């Protein structure tokens, strides 16, 4: 007994072309969305924002001040939680320059301030998710 086999080559190739088109479109949009999400969640932007914010606060600093900078914008990000990035030690002051480094292997972002004050100490407060800067006397 002969089996009847139906073969529609033209239809198959049309189907393949459409599948290819849909796949390429999906890949394109996936790349686009991945790019947008990576840019939006990039901690590099926050490094710059916090370095400048802290430098401007220190420009205003006067002896015996205690300045507390909240980092709540950062901690809410999934990336920090996923990669278990610690905010402790992410901010440092060298001379009259503030460096903010959220990626342990990165260089971070530095911004200078003009106020000639001595930063006696600075530390991370995990409970409040903030950094505290203790201002000493003028240099």
């Amino acid at each position, binding site marked *: 007994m002969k089996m009847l086999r139906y073969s529609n080559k033209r239809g198959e*190739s049309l189907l393949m072309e459409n599948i290819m088109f849909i796949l390429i479109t999906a890949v394109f949009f996936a790349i686009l969305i991945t790019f947008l999400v990576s840019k939006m969640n990039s901690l590099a932007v926050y490094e*710059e924002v916090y370095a400048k914010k802290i430098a401007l606060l220190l420009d205003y600093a006067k002896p015996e001040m205690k300045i507390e900078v909240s980092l709540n914008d950062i901690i809410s990000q999934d990336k920090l939680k996923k990669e278990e990035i610690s905010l402790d030690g992410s901010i440092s002051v060298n001379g009259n320059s503030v460096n903010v480094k959220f990626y342990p292997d990165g260089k971070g972002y530095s911004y200078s301030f003009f106020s*000639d004050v001595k930063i006696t100490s600075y530390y991370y407060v995990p409970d409040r998710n903030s950094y505290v800067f203790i201002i000493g006397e003028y240099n």
Partner: protein
Amino acid sequence: MFNKKGGQKVLFVYWFIIFVIITGGVVYIVSLFYGAPHNVREIESEILLERTVDCISEKGYIHEDFLSNKITNENFPDFCHFNFEVSSPEKNPIGQYYLKLEFFKFDSSKELGMGNKVISIVVGNPNLDTPKEILKENYIPPKLVYLLDKEGNPYIIKINSIVGKFNENVK
């Protein structure tokens, strides 16, 4: 003659080109937006101005040391506790701050009340004092402050506080 298969291939290429253009455009705009630095020059120069005014005035009057010419270009930064030294020479090889103070005796008959100039103090990088025509939207105009000395004589102080840092703030 109508060739449906050929037509679909052309349409496929057409859509592909459209996707490439749209994706390229979105990537370019997003990169431009997130790549541009946050410009804080104006805020920083405002802070420098406020700190300068704080330094000039003592209990609401002009500090005596200014009028007795004890404050010069050299000791002004130390007197006001400013540190204009370059912390990262590779990033900013030249000074990034400029401060010019001009004390005028108040004269109501003159424009803006600016009579004779009595004191002038200039510190920082003078190249930053670039005209508005060149800097355009990055130009920070000078501010005028009205203060009295301890005898009650009025002065107009023209303060030009400019922050450079173009690499970090302007794209």
